[in-house]
């Protein structure tokens, strides 16, 4: 590991300035991922700009049905929040499914969203893959059992964040701070696939970082996040599903459905969402048409080989279970 400078600014503005003042500056929050990348020699920052002391980044504001979570809120904070458990169970379940208690206690919300992919070709310093500026995706014709089955253009990573999947289903908004101040965007616009940017998984530019996340809930709503991992601790999703549904007068007036572990970005199933809109929840429960739609919702998936085709079945079975659970909750 190379030596580096370490900064702990106290305002977002200072942090952004420090990030733009050195060409190889890197923002760091809980440092559960970046340090590993540095040790592996994947990144060589000249300076690290820690957000640990930055004012206002650990906020946890509740205003009516609106909640704002600072990006330095830890995953343990999320897991321990009774308010979130009641209003955004999908977020809490996603946070609780991450890694180990040790990592959750220092890993942050913003860091979790911005963590780099776990693709083993990307992580090994011995492969010069597309994402690292090379000219080949080694997973093609290689060891692809953990790779994407949909949305992988050239680079077949899966997005590693569980929380991103939950927040996609919850229609969260991401607030970014950068040299030109704040920017707000839908979470869908925050993540980018390799077709748009092969080197990055989100839209953050130099000097920018996630400042906070905003989510809102309705009076009659429920959500859940289900994840399949090969072992019960310290593991990423082979497939996951998040579902969030809100009702107005017994009918669905908001639906968020997203899958994880199968694509380079949290994979929103817009068709399913649109289908559900306006339908009375009781009707949905026993609709064969809906079941068939869910069953074929990954019809566009193109597994890389027979080694990762199983992810279709895993994702669909988790999607069905998540939908069942939320619909049951609301009935």
């Amino acid at each position: 590991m190379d030596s580096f400078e370490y900064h702990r600014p106290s305002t977002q503005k200072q942090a952004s300035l420090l990030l733009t003042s050195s060409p190889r500056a890197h923002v760091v929050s809980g440092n559960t991922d970046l340090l590993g990348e540095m040790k592996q020699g994947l990144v060589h920052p000249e300076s690290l700009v820690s957000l640990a002391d930055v004012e206002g980044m650990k906020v946890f504001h509740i205003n009516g049905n609106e909640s704002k979570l600072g990006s330095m809120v830890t995953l343990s904070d999320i897991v321990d929040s009774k308010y979130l458990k009641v209003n955004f169970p999908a977020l809490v379940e996603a946070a609780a499914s991450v890694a180990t208690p040790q990592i959750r206690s220092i890993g942050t919300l913003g860091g979790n969203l911005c963590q780099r992919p776990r693709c083993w070709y990307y992580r090994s310093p011995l492969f010069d893959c597309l994402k690292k500026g090379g000219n080949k995706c080694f997973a093609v014709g290689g060891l692809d059992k953990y790779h994407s089955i949909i949305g992988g253009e050239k680079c077949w990573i899966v997005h590693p964040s569980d929380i991103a999947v939950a927040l996609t289903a919850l229609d969260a908004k991401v607030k970014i701070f950068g040299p030109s101040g704040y920017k707000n965007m839908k979470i869908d616009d925050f993540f980018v696939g390799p077709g748009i940017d092969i080197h990055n998984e989100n839209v953050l530019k130099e000097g920018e970082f996630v400042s906070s996340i905003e989510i809102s809930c309705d009076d009659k709503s429920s959500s859940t996040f289900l994840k399949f991992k090969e072992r019960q601790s310290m593991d990423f999703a082979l497939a996951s599903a998040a579902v969030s549904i809100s009702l107005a007068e017994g009918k669905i007036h908001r639906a968020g459905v997203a899958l994880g572990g199968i694509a380079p970005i949290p994979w929103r199933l817009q068709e399913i969402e649109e289908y559900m809109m306006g339908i009375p929840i009781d009707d949905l429960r026993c609709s064969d048409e809906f079941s068939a739609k869910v069953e074929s919702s990954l019809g566009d998936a193109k597994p890389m080989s027979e080694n990762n085709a199983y992810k279709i079945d895993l994702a669909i079975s988790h999607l069905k279970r998540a939908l069942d659970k939320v619909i049951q909750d609301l009935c």
Partner: protein
Amino acid sequence: MSENLGWVGTSPPRRDLKDKVTGEAEYSADISFDDMLHAKVLRSPHPHAIILSVDTTEADKLQGVRAVVTPFDISNGRIAPDVSILDKKVRFVGDEVAVVAADDPYTAELAVKLIKVSYDVLPFYRTTDEALSEGAEPIHAGGNLINNGPLVEQRGNLDEGFAEADLVLEESFTTPAHSPAPLEPRTALAKWDGSRLTLWKSSRGIHADKASLSQALGLPSKSLRVIGPHMGAGYGGKDETRTAVLASILSIRTQMPVRLELSREEEFVAGRRRHSTMTTLRMGLKSNGEITAIHAKTVMDTGAYLSSGPGVARRAGQGALYLYRCPNVRYEASLVYTNTPTAGSYRALGAPQGHFALESVADLAAKSLGLDPLHFRKKNQVTIEGQPGERTTPVNEIVDTQPSEGGIPFSSNGLSECLTLGAEKIGWDQPVNGIGESFSKSIKRGRGMSMFLYRGGPGGKSHAAVALTEDASYSLFTGVMDVGEGSATVLSQIASQVLSIPYDEIELVMGDTDITPEASITAGSSVTFSSGLAVKDAAEVLRNKILNQASQLLAEPQGVLNLHGSKVISESGKSLSLSDLVEHSGAISAKASVVPGSSDYVINSFGAHFVEVEVDVETGRVNISRYVAAHDAGTIINPKMAENQVRGGVSQMLGFTFSEDMEIDPGTGIVVNSNFLDHKSPTILDFPDIDVVFADVTDPIGPFGAKSLGEPPCIGPAPTIANAIYDAVGVRITDLPITPNKLLSAIKSHKA
């Protein structure tokens, strides 16, 4: 037992417990010197290549670099017949090319990157099929098939056996390159003082390491001292000495202490892994369920170097040769070099691989004949009489613990009791109950079992010394290493049983070649048995010497005297304290050497495992709802530690069964999962509750009736679980590990 302070059969705390839980225990990497240098190895990026040249100019120039050693400036010492200290040929990605010593680890790492190597890259072979293909480049001079042919063991006449059969079953099985992943990576610290070399090394055999170092370095034995601090687990590894030899050479060159500590990634690739195997097993049966012939053929991938390959290959066949009473058996094992990380000894060696095939076919046989798998085994299991056939070992010679010949009884055999106890505990004759609570439609329950045998404890010649010191306290000297399994505690219990004193009042002297007697490596589940016999003998000799002295001092016949704590007590009521005794006699010491084994019996341990699983047919997740492990390990010296030994073995093999494999990229030969995240070792949340039961067996040869237990728990899990999955969902997975991917695909095609 309080009368004679008996410790055998009780569960006092481990002797190293306090040090380990408080962090006081010193491991090899905890030892350091102010002027110590840090070494780092340059490893090959190619799976198979000739090194044409190594240019160290830039590395030499770097401030803080003290020495760089390459294959071009080193004598031709060998660490093993096929392992040079540094070779001009590399055979897997990660093979050692050069090594640097520098003032700090960062400088050493940087220096390694500055070394320029020119390679002539050769074709490489990731699998045994590729390595054995026509015209394949030999990885070592002798060719890729070790000994140019298989190892063959047999008994009776296979053709006759299959001719008698009404039913012949054949199936092929594969097992993964499962890594032991010890928490402590391999570490060696070498300190040369101008005439003598001291090594601190994570080691499972300090005396064997010393011999290996002496040979590799060309140093006389007396110039070497090997110290083994606490072990951060071995699981069969850490008897090889390449890291120690490199640290030693650097220390001799720089005249400074040098530590070489492997990183986690290096530990995975430059450590030792379990041999991956392909076994085809054929079984002939009469329609009444009697087995007439068994033929097993194994092809085993030993990786880039041979290591303990032949021993592993032999052990993989013992189940097929000996577990079922059968006159006609044959085992063939081909051991093959590939350009992959070296396979070696890993807890139970080949036995889990061989038993996976054998016990899966046994299950298949029972189901094919409409027999209950438990009854099928009870009908065919080998009993205390041993196998049919003629003894070929000469009468007065010690019988191998892994014979293929028949005609020799076992010293003890609790297999039948294990089957009965385990079946009772899991409720084998009760129906598999109910269905899981949530998503109930998708959960299928099933039950499975398997049985096994394993060589029972006799290892190499064993030595021990016990002394009553001048301050009237006891010391026990043994050269074996406690690799974490608890032999320090068990050997203390054995000595204290003889000497009638509290087990923790014996000072233990271990882990230093200068002050302990010769010993074998901690291997083959042999320490309790073999070192235990030596310790027991030595303690008995000492006891006799003490009583003899006391008899003179008390003027009483020795026959009426007994040791009791710090006193000798006479039946007449007289007593003599040990302090008074040593005041007259001075320190008293006793030694013993034993060649463990028996010329009359085969000494084996046995067991049977049972499991209940819930298979989610929509996700491929297998939940273990109950696990029962029944073992015959003779007398259990320390029941608590023994139970934990069993639980540890079963839990460790859940990785072999479900999730662990060394993933090697087909295009480059690079291991892509050399870390704890991607090498999926199970975590504590994945461990099921495991009920452990021990058969009530006292072995006539072992110390206080004990046999081996260290490795046997690893044999049962894979076939037991695979058989239960078959019971639950009707698919038999023959290719370990049983990942959700494989299980889902199999369930899908089974339905179709």
